[in-house]
């Protein structure tokens, strides 16, 4: 007999100032079930979570948790019945220790005025034991890696007698191996009869971890069922509402031998990376992958002049090039789309217009540095149209855009320079499936025009389907090179090997 339903949502409607965010959504989760909620950005996933958490009471519909209706739906009642949400920012106190973060709520709840450290440590140890992990109790949470902070958040949720743990995009900032760890924790929780609602748009993960799945599009439920009934294609099609092309990128060398665009010889900045040599021909998309700490990002920053290389040489179109600063890299025609869109890429409060022209200010500036605004506007309008950026106009601040549209703005900023070499570091992290597809198509088009594209990513499916060659970095050295016949399995095998030698 299947375990009883823990959560039942029935015909939920929610509107915000005229926007119909949820249109009659049903969702049910059994005890101990790992359920996945998938959908593009803006499809209503976050709103639905907040309805369950009691933050946004629904206007219509029924919320049933633990066998009886919630009326009204309030955060307190939701927590009381065992619902715990782990938001993307984890809501931890970075300056407090692991133990303090874990025990704080209990201390406050019990109305304690005097702190007894032995009791706090005991609470913390008990919490960590439940997820079968060990963490340094005295370390400030802000000093921990993201994956460990997440574990703290999960452990804290369990202290509240959680029966359903909701995880909002929990794997966004994790490496492949950390994701594996998280999945083990999820398995353990399931074994204890705790249900998990896993919110994600990473299809591989959805398929791996969940038993059932619900897909939202534009605030409506468009598909639901056991995960075994779905594959990547059918999920994508349900999420986007259109059929997806899934072709592998093929590189064909043009007629006649064209000289390589980029040649890197013995490049190094010890200890991050050393002795890295490779070449990129015009029209190639070369993937560089490697675990965190493989020197991948440092290598990219070296090519872009932010952390200049100390050894080796770089040639661009056959000409030797010294890259000691961003200015030099830009002047030579190298562009870099950074890893972290929010901290390294966007000027969130500034307009789309300003975000796009940020990289071409020298070109727009005339005498005394006065900018040619007419040209800037033309340029920006063109990019917005060209990339299909969904915005009423160019003066909207970048922060009001969805992740996918933000990434398009960044890409536009760099393509506005018409670079010879485009280096992208994790260009589709946290981007919805539709935008991801659009970005990949764009990269292929750019390569076809003769640009050299370097795609740094740990999203293996992305690397495998979009690159005609893949370089694997390990501990700062090129460990292997694969041609376009490479498969995810091969790359995964090499990763496993790396993990083995690395020890940790």
């Amino acid at each position: 007999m299947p375990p009883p339903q823990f959560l039942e949502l029935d015909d939920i409607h929610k509107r915000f100032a005229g926007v119909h965010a949820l249109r009659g959504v049903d969702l049910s989760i059994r005890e101990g079930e790992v359920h996945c909620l998938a959908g593009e950005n803006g499809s209503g996933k976050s709103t639905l979570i907040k309805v369950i958490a009691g933050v946004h009471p629904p206007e219509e519909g029924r919320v049933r948790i633990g066998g009886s209706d919630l009326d009204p739906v309030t955060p307190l009642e939701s927590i009381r019945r065992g619902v715990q949400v782990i938001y993307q920012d984890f809501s931890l106190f970075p300056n407090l220790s692991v133990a303090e973060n874990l025990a704080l709520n209990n201390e406050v709840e019990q109305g304690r005025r005097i702190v007894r450290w032995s009791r706090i440590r005991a609470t913390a140890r008990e919490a960590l034991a439940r997820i079968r992990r060990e963490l340094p109790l005295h370390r400030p949470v802000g000093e921990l890696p993201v994956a460990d902070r997440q574990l703290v958040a999960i452990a804290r949720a369990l202290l509240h007698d959680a029966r359903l743990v909701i995880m909002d995009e929990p794997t966004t900032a994790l490496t492949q191996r950390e994701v594996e760890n998280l999945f083990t924790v999820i398995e353990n929780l399931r074994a204890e009869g705790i249900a998990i609602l896993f919110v994600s748009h990473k299809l591989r993960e959805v398929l791996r971890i969940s038993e059932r799945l619900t897909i939202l599009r534009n605030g409506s439920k468009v598909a639901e069922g056991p995960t075994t009934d779905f594959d990547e294609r059918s999920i994508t099609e349900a999420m986007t509402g259109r059929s997806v092309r899934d072709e592998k990128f093929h590189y064909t060398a043009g007629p006649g031998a064209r000289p390589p665009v980029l040649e890197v010889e013995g490049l190094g900045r010890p200890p991050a990376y050393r002795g890295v040599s490779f070449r990129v021909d015009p029209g190639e998309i070369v993937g560089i992958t490697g675990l965190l700490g493989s020197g991948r990002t440092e290598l990219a920053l070296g090519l872009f002049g932010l952390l200049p290389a100390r050894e080796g040489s770089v040639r661009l179109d056959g000409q030797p090039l010294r890259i000691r600063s961003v200015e030099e890299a830009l002047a030579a025609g190298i562009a870099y789309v950074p890893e972290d869109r929010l901290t390294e890429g966007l000027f969130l409060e500034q307009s789309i217009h300003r975000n796009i022209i940020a990289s071409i200010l020298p070109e727009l500036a005339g005498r005394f540095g006065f900018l040619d605004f007419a040209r800037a506007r033309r340029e920006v309008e063109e990019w917005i149209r060209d990339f299909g950026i969904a915005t009423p106009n160019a003066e909207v601040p970048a922060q009001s855009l969805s992740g996918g549209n933000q990434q398009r703005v960044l890409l536009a900023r760099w393509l506005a320079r018409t670079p010879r070499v485009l280096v992208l570091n994790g260009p589709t992290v946290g981007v919805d499936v539709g935008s991801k597809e659009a970005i990949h198509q764009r990269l292929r088009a750019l390569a076809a025009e003769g640009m050299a594209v370097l795609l740094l990513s740990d999203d293996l499916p992305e690397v495998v389907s979009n690159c005609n060659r893949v370089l694997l970095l390990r501990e700062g050295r090129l460990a292997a090179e694969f041609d376009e016949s490479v498969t995810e399995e091969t790359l995964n095998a090499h990763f496993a090997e790396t993990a083995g030698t690395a020890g940790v």
Partner: protein
Amino acid sequence: MSEPAPRKPLLRRILTADDNLNRLILVSVAIFAAMVALNPDSFLTLRNFVSMSYSFPELGLLALGLALCMITGGIDLSVVGIANLTSVLAALLMVSLLGPDSPPAAVVPVLALAIAVALVTGVLAGWCNGMIVSRFRIHPVLVTLGTWQVFSGIAIILTKGYAVPGFPDAFLALGNGRFLGLPVPLYLFLAAAAVVALVLNRTRFGLSLFLIGTNETAARFAGIPVRSVLVRTYMSSGFLAALAGIIMIARTNQAKADYGESYILQAVLVNLLAGVRWSGGYGRVTGVLLAVVTLQMLSSGFNMMRFNNFARDFTWGVFLILIMVANHLFTERKRRRESAAATPRPAPTPNQETPSS
């Protein structure tokens, strides 16, 4: 623009699209009205307005420099120190090279020299600030708090703490003269404000300030020469401070190493009132202009009411804190409104209230 605009309420149509500026306009009008009501005979007189426009330009110039730094996410607390150091240098040059009976032909080159030395020193002082801020990554508050002491310290060493009085009439005209019926300092301030506005809104350098203030890391990744822009920002601030210093001593006919210390608080006050964002990335010259005038109206109005002079610092302090709290409340309200509207932002409803009233 050309798109058919939905019908807006009257106030909306009069006011600009910028909420910050609207709030400021309302505050200014309110203070103006209050001062007129409290001083019915003296406030609305030509004399009062002329006298006000002699005194706010110095503060205005200091505030403009501060605004540039604040837009990059920094601050320059040393502006008063720079103004005093540069004006003491100019004063010493004039006093030592000129006697009461120097021929007019000798006066002009000396004045030019004194003013040039003052302005160049201001730029150099700003360069020091900019270098320390951009190379050593020390918070600008700490850097400029330190250099403020250094600059005023040098001025004290040079003057041994005494005032340096007695400048030629041609120089005093910069502080007390009139042109077409309006005070000369007012022209200098308006010219400086126009240049700053032009630079901020129309040039590569100006746009870089906003981008750096919004996200310095992203600016570096976008290829903006962050260090050089920051150095030039503090140099501009130093230049404006030196200009303010020249007007100060031309108005009072003496240079003192510790003149106008309370200006720094007032300059910060002006910028907060003007809506220049403390954390960087936003600020408008129009706002600074309006805020300086507003503060001057408040100050003149209090003077007319024979407001206790000893309570002035207290009043400025209270005002500063009130503005900060009000700014905070407005940002909070805005954020709440935006987050309640969720991801796809709805168009503003036609009969939305105007902010504050």
